[in-house]
């Protein structure tokens, strides 16, 4: 899955807000903290971030409000111009693009979903979804056909002629999703797409989103402030604080081995048994006997087995073949929370 070159590759990206950010960044001594920068009259929206997103991967960027996650994703799509560093999308430095090339890139490669939907209030569902197609000059017939297709995909059939205000929040976000998918983008940005929805609908939309992702298999950058949501969806999670990435790793690793105090605090309340998979617990040089457990099973799902079993080492199998073994003791520790 991650064999190709990365789709998005950010190196030492800075985004400063203030009166003359470029000049300031150039003369700024290395290692200046967020607060020190702020006392100089600048806000570090993104602070020296290097991150890569592989093809087909879902990277979730997590952080509290004001941590810079929305700013970072807007740098990826160049809704913000970055102050320093480079961002390459499919090997192309996006800061070097002319306005025309940038528009081309967005018209063909990128889709984005917004927290408060960003729908055009004067257009029907159909016209909203067809909007990006209209912008790139597709003829009326083709864009109507494609729009209907995507509307069906997100389950809004029969509402094509409604106006946004006639829809519920969840339905409006489905329109937003459909619009971002209309041009068949390779890269999909989602900026807290479900935060404005109430918890029940949010859950439903997450399921819907997972279904879509299984169908489409896009490269995704997903932003959320909800750790549970991140754990549920992510291949990898990047946790941000004050514009910088504190840790970027798989959910299992973040829960088991938090890199900083800040990340540890975040993970404290999490039921680790639900997050950690047996694959993560495989120890080298360990041999197990008997029936193997599946590598993608969470510790929690094996609770009964772990308690009743008497083996000290349990083999772990992926797609039917044994790939290693884990200590039952360790898994039990995670289960009861002593780890």
């Amino acid at each position, binding site marked *: 899955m991650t064999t190709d070159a990365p789709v998005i590759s950010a190196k030492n990206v800075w985004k400063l807000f203030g009166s003359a950010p470029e000049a300031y960044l150039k003369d700024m001594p290395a290692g200046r903290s967020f607060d020190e920068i702020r006392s100089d009259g600048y806000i570090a929206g993104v602070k020296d971030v290097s991150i890569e997103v592989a093809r087909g991967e879902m990277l979730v960027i997590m952080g509290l409000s004001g941590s810079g996650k929305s700013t970072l994703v*807007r740098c990826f799509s160049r809704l913000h111009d970055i102050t320093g560093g480079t961002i390459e999308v499919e090997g192309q430095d996006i800061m070097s693009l002319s306005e025309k090339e940038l528009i081309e890139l967005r*018209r063909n490669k990128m889709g984005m979903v917004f927290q408060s939907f*960003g729908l*055009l209030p004067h257009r*029907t569902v159909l016209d909203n979804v067809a909007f*990006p197609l209209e*912008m790139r000059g597709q003829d009326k017939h083709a864009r109507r056909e494609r729009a209907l297709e995507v509307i069906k995909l997100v389950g809004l059939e029969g509402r094509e002629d409604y*106006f946004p205000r006639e829809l519920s929040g969840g339905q409006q976000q489905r329109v937003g999703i459909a*619009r971002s998918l209309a041009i068949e983008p390779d890269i999909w940005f989602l900026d807290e797409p479900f935060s404005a929805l109430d918890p029940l609908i949010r859950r439903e939309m997450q399921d819907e989103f997972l279904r879509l992702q299984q169908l489409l298999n896009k490269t995704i950058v997903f932003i959320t402030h909800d750790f549970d949501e991140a754990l549920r969806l992510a291949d990898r999670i990047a946790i941000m604080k004050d514009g910088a990435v504190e840790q970027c790793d798989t959910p299992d690793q973040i829960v088991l081995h938090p890199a900083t105090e800040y990340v540890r605090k975040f993970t404290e309340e999490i039921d680790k048994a639900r997050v950690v998979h047996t694959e993560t617990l495989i120890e080298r040089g360990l041999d197990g006997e008997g029936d193997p457990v599946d590598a993608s099973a969470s510790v929690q799902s094996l609770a009964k087995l772990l308690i009743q079993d008497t083996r000290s080492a349990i083999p772990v199998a992926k797609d039917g073949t044994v790939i290693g073994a884990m200590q039952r003791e360790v898994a039990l520790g995670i289960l009861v929370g002593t780890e």
Partner: protein
Amino acid sequence: MADTTAISANPPMSRSRLASLLVGLAILVTALQYLGFLPAALHRLPEALVPDFARYLDAFFNFVKDDLGLFALTRWLTGLLQTVLDTTANLLFGKRRWPNLGPIPWTAIAASMAVLGYYLGGWKMAALVAVTFCWTALVGQWKIAMQTMSVLVVAAPTAFIIGLSLGVAAWKSPAFNRALKPVLSVLQTLPFFTYLLPAVIFFKVGPTAGAVATTIYAIPPMILMTTLGLQKVSPEVVEAGHMSGCTKLQLLRHVYLPSARTEILVGVNQVIMLCLAMVVLTAFIGMPGLGAKLLAMMGSFKLGRSFEIGVTIVLLAVTLDRMSKAWVVKQPEHFERGTPWWKRHIALLLGLGAFVVFCIVAQFIEVASEIGRKQSLSVGKELDTGIKWFLNIEWVKATTGFLRAFVNVQILIPFRNFMLSIPTPAFILLITAFALWLGGRRQAITALIFFSLVALSGWWDRSVITLYSVISAVSIAMLLGLPIAILAARTEKWSQRLLLVCDTAQTFPSFVYLIPAIMLFGITDIAVIFSILIFAMVPLIRYTIEGLRTVPPEVIEAAEMSGATRMQKLVNVELPLALPTMAVGFNQAIMFAFFMVIIAAFIGTQDLGQELQRTLAGTDLGKNFVLGICVSLMALTFDLTILKWSSDRKKMLGLEE
């Protein structure tokens, strides 16, 4: 709350001390004047020292007009405008010009407008439209009403297009916006007479000049509303536009402008209302129509007919206002799939149908086409008798007589004489102190400069008389309006009712406020004050109710739980919190008063308005501008000071970011 001001902010303390110092100084100078010690040069600026601004301005205008070739440009524009106006004039009231089709039968216009009303606001709106147009036709004012409308239908769209373009430009370029802002605030306080004379000089007397003046007058709010609307578009919608690959033009056309629809349509509403208000006033430069007729009728004291025309104007204003407001709130509705074409466009088809049918009917039945003088149902004469009878009833006569005699002789005239007796420097000091105390140093300096300029203009006495009319009218309006508003604000029901009355009254073109004033008091000082007074009371009541009703309920509940009586609650909680909003109303009342005092010049006053009106007869462009700017400078001083205080206060109370 008083404590916190004193502790938290040192400057206000020294500010108020400085202000009292200035007041003291002013009193000292005035006292010297009364004792006869003050040299005459300090009482009034000697004539010799007054620079001849009017001549400088004249020279400047002549330079622009002749040497820069502006005149050629405006003459060319006049031709263009003339053609358009002739066309609408032909269609609406049958002026013999191209395309020689008109006049369109009144029934056809009324019917298709009623359908438009139905489309925008349902049956009620349709009924309102029908009543308005039928009334106009039946009292025999169709032709003059259409003369007015023929200018309106040209001026309003022109103002809309220019305002929209300038608004977009101001939003795009902050530098342009900064340059435009002060110009707009001057334009909005400039008395309308100042619009009229240049229009006449550059664009010929009659409908063309009327249309130009009307257009220019209506542009500023359109610019402001456009900029406001565009700035308010949600950033996410814009980003969505960017991510959809919009080019700059596509973004403006498909994302920004439609998203700012509400504000832009509110701007359209204001454009229409201002156009109507102004087009009536263009009577002063000889534009035929409702305004001219009203002017003539009032001049010859035919109050019955004046009243009828007033009703027509008011009905038209209310109808246009309601219709454009209905358009603002009208949201797109979707049709079920498979709705046939005719059903989707039913309103359009009905409107066209009604239009065609009545056009044909009018060919055979003359009344449906035009209502002649003899056939009209005007009851002007009868009304005249009625009014005379009413004014002759003992107690009415006694009341108006008392007001005329007592208020005028005992209060107004002494007050005016007192204001005139204050030496110029003392007066300026007082105004400066007022601005310093309420606004701050910047406002004080502005006030000082502005009023010094007024003094330098050589029209000081007339300016003071203008100010006297404004102050007395606004004071009386407060005495009457505030208790009414406070009483009404006690219940939701009465608040709503009164707000509706205010909203409606605010749409009336200012001119009609003169009618009741003249009816009751004839042509006197009191009539002037009275017309300003009712005009200024509207915003006062409006904002007071709004301020009181928007006090946060939990604060009121807290006061109630603290055992406050109704009076305590009002004095200690509601009024302090409502005061910033009330100040906005107070400010608007002053602006309205400045506006009205100029119109009231028609009644025969001795203020700047009178002089302004006189300039209209000639080609005194320079003098006209000097006078207009005097009014504008005085109005702006109050505007800047009071609004600054209001926003400071709101910030302090945490009511606004």
